């Protein structure tokens, strides 16, 4: 492998339910900075059907080239198909770095691409840096107890997956110039043995997505019951936010899995995170520690959540949240 043949950064975007996932633009924004410090080009690729209208957005967020791969077959995501088509595309344009969203889908086709190309991959990065021209991939391990810096010295491309909301979207510059390139997906001799039989959505429509909300009010074991979450919902509604949950609250059946914040759930970084009745295991903390402001409400003064909170109130949430709501209403009326 002649690694000097590989140039530029490629961001793999994702279309989900007919829309571009926000993580796509987050990765393009981050990659823009990286491309500038490496003095190289940034491209982004999107796969699906009838998606060419998104090329301009990818350029506005920082891509120099927006690749659009359209085909009826690509409309529904299948791991072996996406992995093969993307791997072949990557082989054809030879980028030095590839960023893939660490969504459920990206974590499924991503590793296959790395194995196909026989190159290195780093999962779930929480930071990416360019240091002396080298690509440093930073990620937690051991349940968030240790951070590791990983490099891929002699193989290209260097592939990393990044969770949604680890990076913020940057400037949207409508005037930005870029090139849109339509690519015919290479699907020759791909034997697809996977069939989607059904897709079921369990998130109630109309409710705010936890990983896209500016304010998240999360509950844990201390909430005590499914019913207890309704007051958290009231507070979240007042703040225009969403209700999240700890793993325990999900396991007890109080909240759906789609609301789970933490290592085996969502990573969130809202402006305000209110943790109610959550003790703060390391697994939960890795999923929310990058929130701008953290407020913790817990009966136990020794709960570890207080160690990372900007503000905390020791006490019973059943009494504190109603006061919070009442005081907020006064404020918002002003």
């Amino acid at each position, binding site marked *: 492998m002649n690694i000097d043949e590989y140039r530029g950064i490629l961001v793999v975007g994702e279309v989900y339910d007919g829309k571009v996932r926000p993580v796509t633009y987050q990765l393009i924004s981050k990659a823009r900075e990286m491309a500038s410090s490496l003095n190289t080009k940034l491209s982004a690729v999107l796969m699906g059907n009838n998606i060419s209208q998104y090329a301009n957005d990818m350029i506005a967020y920082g891509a120099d080239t927006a690749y659009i791969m359209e085909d009826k077959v690509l409309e529904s995501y299948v*791991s*072996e198909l996406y*992995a093969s088509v993307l791997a072949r595309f990557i082989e054809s344009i030879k980028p030095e770095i590839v960023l893939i969203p660490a*969504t*459920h889908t990206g*974590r499924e086709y*991503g*590793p*296959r691409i*790395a*194995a196909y190309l*026989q190159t*290195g*991959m*780093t*999962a779930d990065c929480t930071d990416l840096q360019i240091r002396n021209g080298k690509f440093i991939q930073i990620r937690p*391990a*051991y*349940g968030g*107890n*240790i*951070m590791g*810096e*990983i*490099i*891929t010295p*002699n193989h290209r491309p260097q592939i990393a997956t990044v969770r949604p909301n680890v990076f913020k979207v940057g400037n949207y510059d409508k005037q930005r110039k870029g090139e849109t390139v339509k690519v015919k997906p290479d699907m020759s001799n791909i034997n697809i043995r*996977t*069939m*989607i*039989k*059904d*897709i*079921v*959505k*369990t998130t109630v429509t109309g409710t705010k997505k936890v990983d896209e909300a500016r*304010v998240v009010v999360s509950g844990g074991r201390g909430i005590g019951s499914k019913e207890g979450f309704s007051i958290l919902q009231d507070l979240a509604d007042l*703040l225009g936010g969403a209700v999240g949950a700890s793993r325990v609250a999900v396991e007890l059946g109080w909240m759906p*899995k789609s609301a789970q914040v933490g290592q*085996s759930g969502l990573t969130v970084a809202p402006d*305000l995170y209110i943790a109610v009745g959550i003790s703060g295991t390391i*697994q939960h903390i*890795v999923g929310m*520690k990058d929130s*701008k*402001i*953290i407020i913790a409400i817990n009966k136990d*003064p020794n709960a570890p959540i207080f160690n*990372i*909170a*900007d503000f*905390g*109130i*020791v*006490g019973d949430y059943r009494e*504190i949240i109603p*006061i*919070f709501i009442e*005081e907020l209403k006064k*404020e918002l009326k002003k």
Partner: protein
Amino acid sequence: MKILVLVKQVPDTTDVKFNENGVMIREGLQSILNMFDQFALEEALRIREMYGGEVSVMTLAPEQAKTAMQKCLALGADKAYHISDRAFGGSDTLATSYALSLAVQKTGPYDIIFAGNQATDGDTGHIGPQVAEWMKIPHTSYVERVEKIENGTITVKSLLEDGYRMIEMKLPALVACIPPPNFEYSNPSMSGIIKAKNKPYIWMKADDIDGDKSKFGLNGSPTRVVKMYPPPKRERGQIFTGDYSESVRKIIEHLKEKKVIE
């Protein structure tokens, strides 16, 4: 039905202690069977119960991982393959998945390969998809349940962030499993533990699996860990223990200052 489950022994990271510098103390951490893998094994055993067949478990790990393998046998697996060789030291996920895929082909063919969706130590989720890619077989990750096996296909329930998909794959296929919320893990029974001692336990070395030895271990690993350190700490802020109303008002004042509420 020939079924294989890929498993890993991991340090128990749910109860980690730190030294005064905030560095994780790795000594004395208990070694356990990766919970994702145990769930995968229990799914495999349930499938064996329904459709008959044989369930083997396989690991690529130092000798001490035998404890986790014995647990798999005690839980009901029929046979264990333990690949252990210094040649595999320093393997990253690409090198590990390569060696595993060779061992799978050597000891197979299998109809279904189960794996945990991820291991709780590295948490990469790479091994399942990458073994499948080396073998050029279909796979699905985030599998919470195997629904059925019928006419040479397997149907699985695979989780999305906001729901799930029912996916049918032609066999052979690989499924990477994630336990549903409140899954109750089985404990090995006394008779299971006794029976485990007489089940086939097959040790394999690098020489026992055919393949390109330059792709084994550190040499075959494109990635390098160059640094490890404790995660950045957030400072402990103001914790109120007094009057609720006063505490709430102070916090709201601050939120206003920071323009979180306007």
